[in-house]
């Protein structure tokens, strides 16, 4: 039993699996964006090579900053996303589901955002401060539509456990058919959460150099990157589970294959969106977030509730 728990915790769906997925996601993303820009792009082991290079670099922090706080924050983010990853079903394999795990996962996944903000404040440079404050402003604009969009499937399935939502989709069909608007809003919210183009305002390279992580170096930065990439992977898994999980037959191999294809499809979509749009301004984002996205999300939710599925 203990050995089994260790396996779950460290191999699948725990540490090693999530790190590997994060690196695969990062490579796919960078390669696709590079090909869209007519470049060659990195080779398959680039994210691993970058990680090894980062952990071998010098660890320096700005003078006068609190070393304990700045060290804990990436560890906290990484731990939070790993914990959340234990509860997200992957291709039908799920070991720890319980009623309400969707809410716990969403809560755990917002810890990295808060940690990013605190890192921006705690590293006392001017660019970090600006990046951190922008990330909180952005958080207020995308989080409400994202949470509303991710609650839609739960209301439709009548349960707050992801496993039950998946089971409900297996009989009714993928929820994207019933809530296409919710899916679009969830994708937009995910782009905001992951701070990807067009919503990479907190880390806009020409304005705030590297955002809240400007002063980070070495192994702490390596863990920040890992936490961000695992968060991305978990976000995609959540989207697949809540909106797209339906497979023609209940054979494990086929459903795994279907899951992988959906994962790749979502990564391609995110990369295309990143390549095509320019960055929004923070006031434009706040405007779009509260004037367009939140009313649409509420509309979608009302449709779901009152249609009485």
């Amino acid at each position: 039993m203990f050995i089994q728990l260790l396996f779950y915790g460290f191999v699948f769906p725990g540490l090693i699996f999530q790190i590997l997925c994060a690196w695969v996601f990062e490579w796919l993303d960078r390669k696709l964006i590079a090909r869209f820009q007519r470049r060659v792009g990195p080779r398959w082991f680039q994210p691993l090579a970058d990680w090894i290079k980062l952990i071998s670099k010098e660890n320096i922090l700005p003078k006068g900053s609190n070393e304990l706080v700045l060290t804990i924050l990436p560890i906290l983010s990484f731990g939070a996303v790993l914990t959340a990853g234990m509860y997200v079903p992957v291709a039908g394999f799920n070991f720890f589901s319980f009623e309400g795990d969707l809410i716990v996962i969403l809560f755990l996944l917002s810890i990295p955002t808060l940690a990013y903000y605190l890192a921006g404040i705690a590293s006392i440079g001017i660019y970090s401060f600006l990046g951190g404050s922008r990330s909180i402003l952005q958080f207020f604009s995308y989080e409400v539509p994202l949470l509303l969009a991710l609650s839609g499937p739960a209301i439709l399935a009548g349960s707050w456990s992801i496993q039950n939502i998946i089971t409900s989709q297996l009989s009714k069909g993928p929820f994207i058919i019933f809530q296409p608007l919710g899916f679009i809003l969830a994708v937009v919210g995910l782009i905001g959460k992951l701070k990807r183009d067009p919503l990479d305002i907190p880390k806009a390279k020409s304005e705030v150099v590297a955002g809240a992580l400007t002063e980070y170096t070495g192994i702490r930065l390596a863990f920040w990157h890992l936490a961000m990439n695992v968060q991305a992977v978990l976000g995609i898994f959540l989207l697949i589970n809540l909106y797209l999980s339906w497979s023609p037959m209940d054979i494990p191999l086929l459903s795994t294959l279907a899951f992988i294809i959906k994962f790749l499809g979502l990564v391609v979509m995110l990369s295309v969106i990143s390549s095509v749009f320019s960055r929004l301004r923070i006031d434009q984002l706040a405007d779009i977030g509260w004037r367009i996205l939140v009313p649409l999300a509420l509309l979608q939710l009302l449709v779901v509730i009152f249609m009485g599925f």
Partner: protein
Amino acid sequence: MEKITIPIGPQHPLLKEPLSLLIDIMGEKVTGGTLRLGYVHRGIEKLAQSRNYIQNVPLIERVCGICSQVHTTTYCYAVEKLLGIEIPARAQYIRALMCELERIHSHLLWLGILCKHIGLDTIFMHTWHDREMVLDIMEELSGGRVAHAANKIGGVRFDLDEDHGPMVISIINKLQGQIGKLRDMVMHEPTIKARTEGVAPLSQDDIRKFCVVGPVARASGVDVDFRRDDPLPPYDQLDFSVVTHTAGDAWARTIVRVEEIEVSMKLCAQILQDIPDGPIEVRASRRVPAGQVVVRAEAPRGEVVYYLRSDGSDSPARLKIRTPSLTALSILPKQLSEIQVADIPVVVAGVDLCIACADR
């Protein structure tokens, strides 16, 4: 909310060359900025006085990387006026061809940089890929991609073969399709418009007060182009239009530059069609008779002015260069006082700074 000062530069991802901009912000609003130049000051005016006229040609070429051809062209015309010689027509046309090609690649570079700073890396990569086509032409003609060493006092240093003409025309035709697509994208793509429209508008009054020149002035409706107003040969025999726009904001400046690329491409085709045969140089003496001359030309960024005084020896007594980037920098603090923090890249990139030109 308290006022904080962001230092942009001397090293910053936004700047290609070192410049120190201290921008005061309050929240997300910019309240002002101060400027400090001199990080790339090489003392070219003083250096020019201790070198002879022929040695000065490579020195002047290195005032700026992107507008090197127009600087040497202006300098050589100034010296030739003092010498009282006129270079052959074929040399004039070759000089103009290199100037126009340089204008195309400078504007393409600028467009890529602007899109990179607003987050659209894809257009940045595509524009610079197209710019490679122009650099290949220049390498084929002169041997250098950016520093061509095309001019000498008395003419040009290389001639065009029979197959150079058709080669240039075919590459320009290929480029025409790309520029057409870019133009459509800049005019109609919603995110580019959303980021640049209405940002830091300059009225005609501001342009006049600060003596701004170049595409920045033309984007506000001031119709000035020194290729038409004070033409160096052969521009007085060439037929081209001057692009102006009325809005005066960052979007207008983008449109003006993209349309100028198209005008320059037509000019290149016209030059290659009209180019006469003949020699490409005349003999120029090393000693220049005493005299003073002022020559103006149109660089990609505006008006470049050369004042040259000679005292009868073989090195200049005084060489004064006024580059257009200096005027763009003088209006930058005013532009910075009315925008938001997220517009800083658009404004700073939108005036197309060439700090090496400004510092000399």
